[in-house]
């Protein structure tokens, strides 16, 4: 399997200079104890590199610190250890070079779809005509032509998240961060969203870091899946996904996909059992 090849390669040539867009270097997070209690270790220091134009999904059970990691990359949270480097520069706070899509609906309710997409452009003081062009392009890309003047409350959850993706990408970020963006959507809508986002990635080739707890989603979207273990989080597996592009949803029924799914299911199941403290009958 290619996944194994990749790991073998990495082991054979440690420190080989590759073009790394994003470097996560020993990043850990400890939350101070509440009421004098013991501090909580949310994320054991972890390290990995993200290559340019890679689509990486971070897969882990809830509470493993994967969202914390993403928030640290976004600059919304500070690591208590290590550092994050984007294009050679240390990340010290949030900025427009790292676009983010949240699990909760974060469109500004007082702005229309178009005004939401233009939010970051206005902040950059881009000329209004250019803002309109960029917004039109991205609204079209996420399939929301004709909804530019709608307010968020008039949209379905899927449409709101598509607008959020357009809003993040309109800013032309160096990396797109997504924190379980389709977690609140129903199964069918989620499938469509995955295809839409993957289609955009295939045509635009941006670097993506995508956090999820859904195994199928992690495999379908990714060129590389990082499995994070249960609290305290650390990288348990680093799996390359070499399924061909453009990927169609039917890839989910191919043997290659199933094999990856079986493997990751095993990895993640062990972690889930650890989190819940469950001892299953016969196990």
């Amino acid at each position, binding site marked *: 399997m290619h996944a194994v090849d990749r790991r073998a390669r990495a082991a054979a040539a440690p420190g080989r200079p590759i073009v790394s867009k994003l470097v996560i270097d020993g990043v850990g997070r400890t939350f101070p104890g509440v009421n004098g209690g013991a501090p909580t270790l949310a994320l054991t220091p972890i390290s990995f590199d993200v290559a340019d134009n890679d689509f990486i999904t971070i897969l882990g059970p809830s509470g493993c610190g994967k969202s914390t990691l993403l928030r640290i990359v*976004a*600059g*919304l949270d500070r690591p208590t250890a290590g550092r994050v480097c984007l294009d050679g520069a240390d990340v010290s*706070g*949030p*900025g*427009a070079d*790292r*676009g*983010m899509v*949240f699990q*909760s609906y*974060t469109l*500004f*309710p*007082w*702005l229309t779809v178009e005004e939401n997409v233009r*939010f*970051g452009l*206005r*902040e*950059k003081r881009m000329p209004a005509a250019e803002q309109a062009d960029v917004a039109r392009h991205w609204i079209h890309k996420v399939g929301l032509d004709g909804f530019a003047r709608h*307010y*968020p*409350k008039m949209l379905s959850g899927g449409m709101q998240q598509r607008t*959020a993706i357009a*809003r*993040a990408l309109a*800013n032309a970020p160096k990396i797109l*961060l997504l924190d379980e963006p389709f977690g609140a959507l129903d199964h069918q809508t989620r499938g469509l969203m995955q295809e839409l986002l993957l289609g955009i990635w295939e045509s635009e080739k941006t670097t993506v870091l995508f956090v999820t707890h859904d195994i199928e989603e992690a495999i379908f979207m990714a060129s590389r899946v990082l499995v994070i273990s249960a609290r305290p989080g650390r990288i348990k597996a680093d799996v390359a996904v070499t399924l061909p592009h453009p990927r169609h949803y039917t890839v989910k029924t191919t043997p290659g996909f199933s094999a990856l799914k079986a493997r990751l299911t095993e990895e993640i199941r062990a972690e889930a059992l650890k989190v819940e403290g469950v001892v299953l009958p016969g196990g």
Partner: protein
Amino acid sequence: MTPLKPVGRARKVALGVAFFVLFVAAWSAATLGGFVSKTFLADPLTMLAEGWGLFAEHGFAKDVGITVWRVLGGFVLAAVLGVPLGIAMGAFKPVEAFFEPFVSFARYLPASAFIPLLILWAGIGEAQKLLVIFIGVFFQIVLMVAVTVGSTRRDLVEAAYTLGAGAHGIVRRVLLPNAAPQIAETLRLVLGWAWTYVIVAELIGASSGIGHMITDSQALLNTGQIIFGIIMIGLIGLVSDFAFKWANQRLFPWGLQ
């Protein structure tokens, strides 16, 4: 009746009007039927006649005008100073830490108890009336606006940060528009309180206004005029309330409802 089931528009209006009809009917029955002495409570017809007399013979329109002016003056003054301070407190925690304890304390000081002091300081002119209203509503506005701004959804603020907004952008483009509908709602509520304070201010040391008319009528035992004055205030309040609601829906089409 099914809990929380909405009623139709026509039925809603009919029910609302029905209460007023029942209220006036009960009042009429009690007074016109002779169950309550005229000395204590005028009947609706006498009240209307007295009201007509107030406007026709006593220049009551001028009293109403001056009272409305005082309410708006004190209210606008408090809002112009209170809203920005509340926003600053809601947005910036050190500002909040500096003002909040004092404002919370001052909020409980009864405005009416300041009237003797205010008369000493500002005389019995308009300044004193405006100050009573100002003290009555300013601290409430500050605190309620601060809470509204401070309770802005964190994920909206974070989304704005990841889109490149700085501190200035966060306040102007997230906190303000997010809080605006609720601030307008706060002002609508507080305007109602301003009406209470203006009458209190006019009951003591005033020579004009609806409150002054009510004190005069008390001396003459004219309950018809007193009730007419009270109803007048209620009607003006209702009109201003509708105006506020209408304006809010126009200004903030995405907001409450």
